[in-house]
């Protein structure tokens, strides 16, 4: 009897130390991954390193920043040795300021209606399509969705965006801010992001001997087997480093996802 051949999806190798091992090779190509975490948990750094590693491999990358002005984001990220400003200057990593994009699209209103949401999706997908972006980060989808008042519209926005980006072969990280979460809580601010995402990566802090240690846990990743264990994150000048938390043991450990 002939053994059944196992099908393996193409991977987007993140290049982040330890993450590809957790994901058994990387994020399945074209996936939309929700990176949810509390403030200071390393979401932006992780996402930026994901782009830098892609750019170094010759991929076209894009970063949409809604949480902080692009100038501030670039100033903050410059402290990391893995980041090279030339990548932005030469267009390997395209950093888009959402406020500028809103202004260009005439989206000056405090809330977006259906037409505005469609215009936004069209613009993002146009950009991805025109410059052939294969790695995309939206930081954060929470800030972006605050302008969309209806839950149904948020769902449509994220679902349509995710579907179009997947069709274009773009692997996307949607950053989501969670301010108060317990083990039973949602992994997202609006509760709909997690339902449409192909993968969910949760980031937070655990208290250990009076210190807050950052951790990362892959909760879900369609199309691949993966570890579901908590991993400690260290933000080093050379990049994000993930190591299994088990090696420190688990005594007196309290999860801090803002709880």
């Amino acid at each position: 009897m002939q053994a059944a051949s196992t099908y393996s999806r193409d991977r987007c190798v993140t290049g982040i130390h330890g993450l590809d091992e957790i994901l058994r090779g990387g994020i399945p190509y074209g996936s939309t991954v929700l990176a949810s975490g509390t403030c200071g948990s390393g979401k932006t750094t992780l996402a930026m390193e994901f782009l830098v590693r892609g750019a170094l491999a010759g991929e076209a990358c894009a970063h949409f920043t809604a949480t902080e002005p692009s100038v501030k984001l670039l100033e903050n990220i410059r402290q990391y040795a893995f980041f090279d400003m030339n990548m932005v200057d030469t267009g390997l990593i395209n950093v888009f300021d959402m406020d500028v994009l809103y202004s260009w699209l005439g989206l000056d209103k405090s809330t977006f209606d259906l037409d505005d949401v469609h215009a936004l999706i069209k613009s993002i997908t146009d950009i991805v399509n025109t410059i052939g972006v294969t790695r995309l980060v939206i930081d954060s989808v929470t800030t972006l969705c605050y302008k969309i008042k209806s839950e149904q519209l948020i769902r449509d926005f994220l679902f349509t965006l995710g579907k179009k980006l997947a069709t274009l072969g773009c692997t996307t990280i949607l950053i989501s801010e969670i301010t108060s979460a317990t083990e039973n809580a949602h992994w997202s601010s609006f509760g709909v992001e997690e339902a449409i995402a192909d993968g969910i990566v949760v980031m937070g802090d655990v208290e250990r001997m009076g210190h807050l240690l950052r951790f990362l846990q892959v909760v879900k990743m369609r199309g691949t087997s993966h570890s579901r264990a908590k991993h400690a994150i260290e933000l080093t000048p050379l990049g994000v480093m993930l190591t299994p938390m088990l090696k420190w043991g688990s005594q007196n450990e309290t999860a801090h996802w803002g709880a």
Partner: protein
Amino acid sequence: MKKKITFDKEDEEFFGQVGSFGVPKFDGEMNGGVPRGFTMVAFTETGSGAELFAKQYVSPAEESENTLYVSTNEGQPEIVRVFKKYGWPLDINVRTIGEEYNSNVLERELLASRYRLEGFRLEDIQRLAQTRFVDENNQDYLTEVTNEIMALGPYFRAAIDSLDFFLQRDDPNRVIAMIRMLQAHTQMYRGLLLISVSVHGLSPSIRQELASIADMVLTFGVRTVGSDFETSMIVSKFRNAPENLKMLVFRVTPEEGITPETVERIA
């Protein structure tokens, strides 16, 4: 504390108690001209010649640097053409709000709708990726114009043609508040201020407010008489000089611009 303004003796002699409307025959009808410190509101009908009157009114330009013409509908070339045609001074201050609005706001809106409809081109994307700051386009033209007039010194002459632009884009109560400030400034600095506003679409309460603030109220009208148009102005308010209230039919001549018909017409 009330602000005390001192006027130069020579200026007092030069400017006198009244200023010209820019229309000599109209000055005569109004017993010498418009008293210094007056704010005039002109309610206008389309085609009644009010735009020309506003330009003619600033044409005496006793001090060109202290004279301001604010146009919300016309562009600089059009204004210059009219001033040249009648030989009026070209060295006065002119602010063309309509033109500024077109280039600052309408062009942006047009570009935004193009981006929304047709999407971004590669060069647009490259420019977008390098743009770090939002170009603020929420210019407050009402405050700007108010400040510009408030900055004019004693015996200034200014015209706002017309107020419709502000009433359509700003809160009318805010517009009225600004006009009150301008009226007080005009009175204090013995200036002359003309504000035109279209009667069409103007709410009765705003019209009433404007009429009560103004020291002089003019109404420009146009009607057909047989196969001709007849343009007229009605002076319905002249503070402290009710004898000046009258209705004048006027014509526009290539030499003098607006000229009241002083000959009694036979009906």
